[in-house]
């Protein structure tokens, strides 16, 4: 019953902004889901007192870890903005969201604004 009886689309059919938004949203969500348990376990170190948490926090000052951290923050911002776009498309019918370019422009503007906020807050290293 599950024999392939039809042809499927390739990258040419998927080359448009709303599809990229979908892929970005899905992949960022997946990566964040993988990150969360790690985050929780690190925080649980606080149970062992500030000294234990401090030693973990010192480990996180390594450049690679810093990079991963800010990547996670970026993924969070991206997933948030993408999610707000979806909530708007689904729940705000009167705003003409049929034009995916328009909704993506709003999403992009919000993302850039968030990026400025990110850039303007100095990192610890």
């Amino acid at each position: 019953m599950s024999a392939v009886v039809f042809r499927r689309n390739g990258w040419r059919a998927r080359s448009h902004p709303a599809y990229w938004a979908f892929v970005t949203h899905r992949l960022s969500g997946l990566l964040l889901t993988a990150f969360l348990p790690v985050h929780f376990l690190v925080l649980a170190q606080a149970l062992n007192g500030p000294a234990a948490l401090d030693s973990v926090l010192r480990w996180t000052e390594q450049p690679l870890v810093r990079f991963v951290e800010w990547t996670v923050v970026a993924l969070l911002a991206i997933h948030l903005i993408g999610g707000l776009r979806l909530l708007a498309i689904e729940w705000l019918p009167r705003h003409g969201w049929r034009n995916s370019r328009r909704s993506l422009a709003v999403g992009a503007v919000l993302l850039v604004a968030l990026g400025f906020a990110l850039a303007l807050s100095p990192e610890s290293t």
Partner: protein
Amino acid sequence: MSSDRTLEVSVWRGDVAGRFAAYRVPRHANQTVLDVVIHIQRELDPTLSYRFACRVGVCGSCAMTVNGIARWTCRTHVNKVAADGRLELAPLAHLPVIRDLVTDLRPFFDKWARAGGRFQGKTTRHDPLAVVRPDAPERRVVDAAIECIGCAVCYASCDLVAWRPDYLGPAALNRAWTLVNDARDGARAERLAAVAGDAGCHACHTQMGCSKRCPKHLSPTVSIAGLKRLTARAAWSGAL
């Protein structure tokens, strides 16, 4: 390398396990992809199977995959899609391939029916005529989505159709939306039950391939979002 006067055309031959065959077709200044297909079948290879009817963009029969994207071949100018003189023609995606460029649209229309795509009136011929104001909000919503002619380009352009075999698809859901908003229709509760869930509107992830590729510039995305809102409210209130 093709000259300005010819097109190198790759055409799918056989069933879903077939292959592309190459043809060389004269190129003209004003030429649609349908012209190219007709030329191949009439002048080069009479065994090629394909569909068309009106050839002027009102019937949707000529829908197929052109350079990887679902289009109406009668309304696709060669100059728009074959800048480098190459064309690749394949049958529509997500439908069983009967032969060459012809697909079986029965799954598409079966899902149309399963989504409740048939109007069911509440009155009889003995009742007064229904009055539906064209500027009523619900009618505006219906008018924005009513022009669908069931060509299956949206169905072929949606990944969820491939990923979820039960998914009713954008056209069926779009039609259901027009009926749910039809003031004369009497089957609202059944319709919402038919379109709710993972086989219905909730499978849509707003990829918007449907809205992008619809040759009539409809937006099933908007219709499906409307169904999401209605079914959510119905589930919340216990009506669903």
